[in-house]
């Protein structure tokens, strides 16, 4: 049961990413060309609801299923890695039309060539781990 709830959450994620067409390279191109509101609407709605939900969780000090308080630890306040890492990520996002989640959803959908993209991404993460001490 403990395992099942995460699989079910993942299934819901996979379905919504497919049915919203957010896993489509075409939709990401449309977004980066500012030619449709679709992707902005998806992310905007998710964030708007998310902001309210997080505010409610904080205000009422809600707990998770284990009874521990739900906390939102602050990310470290350095900037170089966010802007440089973000830019590198964005380049890959525009090329593959997929961020990490949609790579796997595409695989399940039947676009098997995404296994190549996934393996490349694992190598990319591996390369970052290897180089991280030398990066700004």
């Amino acid at each position, binding site marked *: 049961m403990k395992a099942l709830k995460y699989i079910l959450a993942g299934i819901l994620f996979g379905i919504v990413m*497919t049915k919203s067409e957010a896993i489509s390279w075409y939709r990401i191109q449309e977004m980066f060309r500012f030619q449709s509101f679709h992707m902005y609407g998806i*992310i905007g709605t998710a964030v708007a609801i998310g902001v309210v939900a997080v505010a409610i969780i904080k205000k009422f000090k809600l707990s*998770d299923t284990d009874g521990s308080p739900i906390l939102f630890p602050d990310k470290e306040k350095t900037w170089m890695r966010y802007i440089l*890492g973000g830019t590198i990520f964005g380049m890959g996002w525009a090329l593959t039309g997929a961020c990490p989640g949609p790579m796997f959803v595409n695989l*399940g959908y039947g676009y098997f060539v995404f296994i190549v993209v996934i393996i490349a991404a694992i190598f990319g993460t591996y390369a970052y781990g290897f180089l991280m001490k030398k990066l700004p």
Partner: protein
Amino acid sequence: MIEFISQPWPWYTSGAVIAFVMILLFYFGKTFGFSSNFRTLCAMAGGKKQSALFDFDWRSQTWNLLFLVGSIIGGYISATFLSGNGAVAIADATLNDLAALGIGAPQGLQPTEIFSWNALMSVQGWIMLLAGGFLVGFGSRYAGGCTSGHAITGLSTLQMPSLVAVIGFFIGGLFTTHVLLPIIL
């Protein structure tokens, strides 16, 4: 009902469901962040000898790997039982821009010019799929998160670093779309 949810979902429904997934993971005591799985997979492959980044008990991240497995199943279910996705109805302006790059109108979710085994026979295919994937894996870990961790969760929790990362996503994405793609394709 099945027919109703088999159509493409409008943006507001999709955004709400994604927020629900994030809140569900908070409720389970976890944080929505998909790219962490790449780090976990590197740790499982024995990466801790190479980098401190991979020196942690990957079993603590099993929940996220299960979420990953679920997302693959979700894609399969959509294709098999909820297959309303025909051609993606993108804007005419995008159709024209892509036609100029030699990418045809959508017939499914992905352009076959890029997402096919045949594409791997060309230099373009290698750049789009292999270099693209590599940059996503490298950049997401460097930035400490991807769309789910920064754009959705980070912005929902009002984290400035996540806003900076999202601005970076767009700097890289806009540069690639408007400057690099016309050269590559």
